[in-house]
């Protein structure tokens, strides 16, 4: 039921790419550096506008939708180079994905009922932070974190909003191996329990491939191969791109 297809023409970064992400899948997007993976995520999340092509989400055209409206539909992302709110604390970073409408200043001034919701959110946030081993530094500002911890915080922040489609841009880069395994397991758990759909860009194929349900391989802005993980890894075109490209 959930289909995400897009095609772009005229962009050299992405050349008529069509990617379909099935509901409840963990779709992996791989390819050499500069093959257009991040560009694709940027377009999907609305950071960039495609020069041509369409973006469908649950059958609706969302090509022209601004990023915050896409978030309301359940599309959330993480960034390859962490884009945290650096002067905010770790906890505050995770609390940022609130339901929209809470930030109406009039309601905040006249009513105090956001505090209850905040309390519930904080409890939820702490569970997430605990899961990602960030709970001990909940009140330190984000700029004090190490590179790997920043990636984890990115992930925590994205998971906090209960997305239905999560776009992950190299969530495992710089994360220690045992934790990486744990994160992948948790993602699969989320997929099974809550039906979250994942579109993930990752270079750590050793970990990621084992959990992926579907793989797209991008090269020079084109899809050169797609299918289940074991099929793609045997595709000669992929081997060519990675080794010879």
């Amino acid at each position: 039921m959930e289909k995400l297809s897009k095609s772009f023409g005229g962009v050299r970064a992405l050349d008529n790419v069509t990617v379909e992400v099935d509901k409840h899948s963990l779709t992996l997007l791989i390819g050499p550096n500069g093959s257009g993976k991040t560009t694709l995520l940027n377009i999907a999340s609305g950071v960039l506008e495609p020069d041509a092509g369409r973006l469908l989400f649950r059958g609706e055209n969302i090509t022209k939708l601004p990023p915050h409206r896409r978030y309301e539909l359940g599309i959330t992302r993480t960034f390859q180079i962490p884009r945290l709110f650096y002067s905010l604390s770790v906890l505050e970073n995770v609390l940022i994905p609130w339901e929209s409408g809470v930030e109406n200043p009039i309601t905040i001034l006249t009513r105090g009922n956001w505090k209850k919701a905040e309390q519930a959110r904080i409890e939820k946030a702490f569970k997430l932070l605990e899961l990602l081993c960030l709970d001990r530094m909940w009140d330190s500002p984000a700029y004090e974190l190490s590179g790997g911890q920043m990636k984890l915080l990115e992930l925590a922040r994205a998971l906090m909003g209960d997305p239905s489609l999560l776009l992950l841009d190299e969530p495992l880069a710089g994360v220690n191996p045992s934790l990486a395994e744990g994160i992948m397991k948790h993602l699969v758990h989320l997929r099974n329990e809550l039906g979250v759909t994942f579109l993930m860009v990752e270079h750590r194929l050793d970990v990621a491939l084992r959990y992926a349900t579907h793989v797209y391989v991008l090269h020079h802005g084109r899809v050169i191969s797609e299918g289940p993980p074991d099929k793609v890894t045997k595709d000669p075109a992929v081997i060519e791109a990675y080794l010879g490209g």
Partner: protein
Amino acid sequence: MEVLMFALSIGTLYSIYLILATSMELEYGELGLPNFAKAAFFAVGAFAVGALAVRLGALLAGIAWEGEFKLRSYYYATLVSSSIARNPLIGLVIFIVPTVVALVTAVALGVLASYPALRLPGDYLAISLIAFSELVRIVTRNYEPLVGGTFGAGVPDFLAWLGSPWRELAKLCMSSSVAVCVWAGYYRLSTSPFGRTLRAIRDDEVAAKAFGKDVTRLRAWTMAIGSGMAALAGVLYAFYMGSVSPDDFTVSKTFLVVLMVVLGGRGNPLGPPVGAAVYLLVDRAITLTKHLIPMPFDVNYASYIVLGMTLVIIIMKRPGGIVPEKPPITVKIAPPLDSLREAAPPAKSRNVGNQLAYSHKPSE
């Protein structure tokens, strides 16, 4: 008696500056939007009073208006004041009507001014807003029917029915209670998800958008609130001064407000009160001591030089200001939080994190 009057006057001025600094703090300190047209929004409040109060008062008191506004407004302001002394109701009307007009105008202008912010990089937005503010001043300075151009406009005393020290005391009470309300409102916003979101937008606009923040709307809200505050300060200022002159609202006024915010500490709710206090202290100290040490030049210049140097030194040596921003500012629920975490049954948290149980070991 003189000391009392001085104290009352300082207190009123401090309240007005506090409101201005708070509005700048909200826009520049929290949202990172350099609204350097502050003087113009401040002026909107003062001009509303200058243009309406004396005309409205004359109308209500049944005084027939003769002659040009710029030449006669001070004269009629005195006449209206004496009618207010007999009929306090007129005083109430000439206070409330301009206030409402000022708020509506300023909020509308604020929302309007929040749109160029989408296209312009920070410093050029600031320059455009400064230019806008100067343009407002130049137009009102040359268009005499509004507030009398360079002549200025007289403002009747809406508290003329009170005796001398009580009138000033009442003004102080009013200004300070408005200031306290404004600051308390700002504090509540700053320590709520709203303030947190503003600071998130300041830190990274793209990420804030990706997490569902309607940046355009939030900017419009913030500018509306900030401009409304500034206009309120302008209304109080006009009644405090007893007259309105366009030349009072130059870029320097904006700069003083920026100075208070940066001096106090951007992003910290205590910044505006501290910054405004330090500014007023330095300014008044220099004005008061100028009689003691005769100088071969105007000592007011020295006050500006000192303030300028202070600001440069603060930014270079202590960029956070006197009271720097503290990150977990919104988490006022922080103390119960820690206990909450300890009190939470460990089984429950492990329930979620059971797949990761081993990965806790390195950190524990």
